[in-house]
């Protein structure tokens, strides 16, 4: 037990990083998701196809693979393409250091992944708004964009908050996968402590409780919000 208490500062540092990455990824994911959702709902076919491909790819492949792809794969891709450009077109070398900073890779992978799920959340939110709202707005002469902005999205936002909270919870847990690329988030910091102390049970149960406190609090809050949304919008 002592070991667990002594290692608390380390675990707290890990938790801090976990929270930062989760918040950052879900935040950026919201922007990506909004663009992707609007693209999927747009009248332009190529935009719809592009957004659908994005959503399908990142929801249909494991986050772990996506993390590896970004951290190890992108640098190789960059190097290969630069060499190709240099050899074929005599382009001067622009990138000298291919390695991607871990944290950047982590946030990129998680944001893109989150964006795909959030895109579906936003799309469902928009589609849950009664068709008559769009029709009423259009019948007044508003463009599709104006109707979205002033009528549909403000109403959809409310309905999207609970599932967004669930996405946040899912992402919080999934960031533990970042331990494979050496990000010292909560899980990885637990692993480091265990490597030093061999107190696997005490440490990992503490790590688990850290996750649980946050996810449990958040999911209770989401339940509360959902109940409040049901009774009178």
């Amino acid at each position, binding site marked *: 037990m002592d070991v667990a208490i002594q290692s608390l500062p380390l675990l707290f540092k890990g938790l801090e990083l976990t929270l930062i990455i989760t918040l950052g990824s879900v935040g950026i994911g919201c922007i990506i998701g909004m663009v992707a959702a609007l693209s999927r709902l747009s009248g332009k076919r190529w935009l719809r196809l592009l957004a659908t491909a994005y959503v399908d790819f990142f929801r249909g492949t494991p986050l772990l693979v996506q993390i590896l792809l970004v951290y190890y794969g992108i640098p190789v891709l960059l190097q290969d393409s630069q060499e190709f450009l240099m050899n074929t077109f005599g382009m001067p070398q622009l990138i000298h250091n291919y390695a991607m900073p871990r944290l950047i890779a982590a946030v990129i992978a998680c944001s893109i992944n989150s964006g795909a799920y959030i895109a579906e959340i936003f799309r469902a939110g928009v589609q849950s708004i*009664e068709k*008559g*709202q769009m*029709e*009423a*707005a*259009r*019948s*007044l*002469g*508003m*463009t599709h964009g*104006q109707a979205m902005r*002033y*009528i549909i999205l*403000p*109403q959809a936002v409310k309905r999207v908050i609970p599932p967004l909270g669930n996405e946040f919870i899912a992402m919080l847990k999934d960031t533990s996968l970042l331990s494979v690329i050496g990000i010292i988030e909560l899980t990885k910091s637990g692993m480091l402590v265990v490597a030093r102390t061999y107190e696997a049970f005490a440490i990992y149960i503490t790590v688990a409780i850290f996750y649980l406190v946050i996810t449990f609090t958040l999911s209770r809050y989401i339940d509360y919000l959902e109940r409040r949304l049901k009774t*009178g*919008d």
Partner: protein
Amino acid sequence: MIEVKNLYKNFGKLEVLKDVNCRVALQEVVCVIGPSGSGKSTFLRCINMLEQPTSGEIWIDGVNLLDKKTNINSVRQDVGMVFQRFNLFPHKTALENITLAPMKVKNLSREDAEKTARDLLNKVGLSDKTDVYPDQLSGGQQQRVAIARALAMHPKVMLFDEPTSALDPEMVGEVLSVMKDLAREGMTMVVVTHEMGFAREVGDRVIFMDEGRLVEEGTPDQVFGSPRNDRTKLFLSKIL
């Protein structure tokens, strides 16, 4: 004012409108009656392009809506629409429901838009409901706000799709009376309705639709008093 020529509308294989032809003159009030599913709503929704017609022509004030060059958003500013289910914006107050489109579409200043909105709310008898949200209004009150919202764009034509069908009986009168006032002021109106009393009293002309066709039209006296078509007779015998 409105001229519809050879209008067809299919939903997939289903032919909903078949060769509909009709004209509505300036300041005329035309009532559209017919059994449920006969295509009345679809007809009305084609007139402001909420449904894309399959073929035909629709002219409003000299503009052909089906011409690719026509800016449909600007046409819609001139064609007000009132829906069966009101479709007020629930996150906006009565006043905001009315001022939104004039401010965003016509770039009116807030003061001007609010002044118009207050006048309109007064006109539909709801000057005390300015800051109330739709869910705190009765059906009849919501529909009157919806009428005011459409009028705020100063449309040349108003379309009504069964504006009183979703209302409790005791609220029908207040909405019809607003519509009567409008007609009296010379608004051009196309009204899909089951209110035969309204059609008789206010309508200049009545159109009977059945199975996607315009079967009979005439003055209310003609259509209600001495219908020529058997299907019109059958329909009227059921409903009157």
